[in-house]
């Protein structure tokens, strides 16, 4: 017999979050605790961790060992890449992008942040705001993460003192006012002892807010996506050419914004032609309407030449179209940005070539100061850059739409992804 429990998953949604913190702030312990207390750790994994702990001669079972991956990293005892972890509660499935906190890993943080709905930033209660805390908050805001949760950790080491928490909270609020931060949350926790992580602390009666897990499970994320500006980057043209589907010509893509409804008018970019939507398909099913981030196939009532890299949009609400692109770039590669260099740019499903016209300034991501004297952009640097593309891109500001507002640069000699760009 089917119980309600078995059907519960039909009502779960998905939250992606990143975790950032300075070394030893307790990030791995916190993730280990979330996984452990939500029963996402299996016995054989726990056994492996117990074995590894005893091999290292650690007295206790080190929950942080659950979360570090490759052998070299295990040997060095640090996380150096982005690792993805999964757990679920009856309400939500969670994907954690676990990234290291050092300045030399800014690129990893940016990568993890690019798909996140929420960022957890750890602060050691004994130390308060560090240079790194500012950097993590800045990256979260630059990458447009809609929700930020500051976890003031190791409260057990400051006698669960409210004054310590309030001081750090107000410092963080001061700093964050300089950022385009959206939804900020502050929680006093002890990752080691478990206070306010999954279970409410009995040691901090003065704190009335929610536990971290409650917040992760209940924070409203449906509003994070853009359901206003209709955008469908065309990924693939579907032409079955079978008897049954002889004249079928469908345009496949993942919706990056707005709602697509049967019968409504769309405009094709760059050609500018208009038509109305004849049908919308998701697999074998036809639907009346579809929204971001659904992957759909659209057919139109007129025969228009459309190919990969084009975009279907609402004629009353066009994106910007230009060959001059003003971006905040985060550099991801050992080889620094070449002034006047040429790169391949990937934006939605469109590919073009581009030239770096100008580096406007470089950002000191610890102090948030802009440097106009030093404009070399190397690994992990962030700078404001003007690009000139060979063909127009159709884009929105990153702050308005993370999908039509983002791009990557590819080095044409090595094929590596060398930069991530947020269109200003």
């Amino acid at each position, binding site marked *: 017999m*089917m119980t309600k429990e*078995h059907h519960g*998953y*039909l*009502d779960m*949604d*998905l939250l992606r979050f990143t975790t950032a913190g300075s070394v030893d702030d307790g990030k791995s312990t916190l993730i280990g605790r979330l996984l452990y207390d939500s029963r996402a750790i*299996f*016995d*054989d994994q726990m056994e*492996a961790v117990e074995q*590894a702990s005893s091999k290292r001669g650690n007295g206790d079972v080190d929950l942080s060992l659950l979360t*570090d*991956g*490759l052998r070299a990293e295990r040997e060095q005892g640090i996380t150096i890449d982005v*690792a*993805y*972890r*999964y757990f*679920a509660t009856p309400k*939500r*499935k969670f*994907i954690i992008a676990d990234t290291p906190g050092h300045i030399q890993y800014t690129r990893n943080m940016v*990568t993890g942040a690019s*798909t996140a709905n929420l960022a957890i930033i750890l602060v050691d209660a004994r130390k308060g705001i560090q240079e790194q805390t500012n950097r993590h908050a800045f990256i979260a805001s630059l990458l447009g993460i809609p929700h930020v949760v500051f976890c003031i950790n190791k409260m057990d080491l400051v006698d669960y003192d409210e004054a310590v928490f309030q001081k750090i909270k107000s410092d963080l609020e001061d700093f964050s006012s300089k950022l385009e931060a959206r939804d900020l949350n502050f929680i006093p926790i002890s990752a080691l002892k478990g206070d306010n992580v999954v279970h409410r602390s009995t040691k901090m009666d003065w704190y009335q807010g929610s536990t971290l897990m409650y917040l992760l499970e209940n924070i409203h994320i*449906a509003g994070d996506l853009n*359901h206003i500006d209709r955008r469908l980057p065309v*990924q*693939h043209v*579907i032409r079955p*050419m*079978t008897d049954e*589907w002889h004249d*079928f010509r*469908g345009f*496949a*893509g*993942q919706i990056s914004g707005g*709602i697509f409804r049967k019968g409504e008018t769309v405009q094709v970019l760059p050609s500018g032609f208009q038509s109305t939507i004849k049908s919308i*398909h998701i*697999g074998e099913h036809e639907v009346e309407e579809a929204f*971001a*981030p*659904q*992957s759909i*196939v659209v057919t139109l009532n007129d025969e228009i030449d459309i190919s*990969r890299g084009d975009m279907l949009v609402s004629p009353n609400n066009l994106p910007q179209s230009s060959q001059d692109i003003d971006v905040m770039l985060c550099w*991801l590669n050992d080889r620094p940005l070449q002034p006047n260099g040429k790169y391949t740019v*990937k934006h939605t*499903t469109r590919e073009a070539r581009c030239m770096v016209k100008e580096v406007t300034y470089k950002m000191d991501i610890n102090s948030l100061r802009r440097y106009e004297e030093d404009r070399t952009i190397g690994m992990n640097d962030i700078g404001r850059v003007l690009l000139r593309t060979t063909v127009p891109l159709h884009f929105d500001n990153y702050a308005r739409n*993370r*999908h039509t507002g*983002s*791009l*990557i640069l*590819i080095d044409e000699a090595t*094929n*590596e*992804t060398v930069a*991530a760009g947020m269109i200003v």
Partner: protein
Amino acid sequence: MHSYRLTHLKELESESMHILREVASQFDNPALLFSGGKDSILCFHLARKAFFPAKVPFPLLHVDTGHNFSETIEFRDKLVEKYGAKLMVGSVQKSIDEGKVQEETGFHASRNKLQINTLLEAIESNKIDCAIGGARRDEEKARAKERVFSHRDEFGQWDPKNQRAELWNLYNGRKRPGEHFRAFPISNWTEMDVWQYILLENIEIPNIYFSHEREVFERDGVLYANSPFMHLKPTEKPFMKRVRFRTIGDMSCTGAVDSPASTLEEIIAEVASTRTTERGSRMDDKRSEAAMEDRKKEGYF
């Protein structure tokens, strides 16, 4: 008012369809690695959705160890026929016969490692530039860091230290001649997600996933199906038992679980309450803590 919100399964589905369409658009000659296990069946199902009403625009590639469950092969052939898919088979037995690899010996002999060679050969001889695999990041620590588009050098090797950055839903599949890619469209799915989705979408899977009566024997605390490929020690006595398989791989290294679960609902309930990972019943990963990572670097899926 309608709330524009997707469930986690529909969001994962949409992401996977996007990835499969990127593969079809960015590569000339991709192929879907098909083992007959639930993850590769899921990938095929998602590919059918991604390209409907057109056919899946790439062939299936089965690396056949010769030590298959017969149920898997029957299932594979039925599926290929039903959907008119194209099937290519790379044979480990052939690699052994041609002297390209040597069969392991002893009680723990497995053809799992030999697959790498056959796979790379099949990729080369069929000029496959992207092999789509059903690996998931939740399976094992080493997989947790693998990109969705995973670059391989001309020797088919993976360099975990030198992976390309992967941001938003932008995937970079550029490569030099001779290099190829692996793409993992269900990277973000967990074992539980897969089972829930199979139930939701009513996807057919081989019957050995469900509880059935079978002759097994016990080795190192794990139950294995008795078959001509297994060399039993004198102390190991086969017996009949109700079991099912949580993963389907080479018969010589896939352990069975003692389970009465005979419907998808029962399997889901079982997965929700089990305390070991799927791979816990696979001998190949137990060899060392870093076993998977070593095999991956050499070109394992």
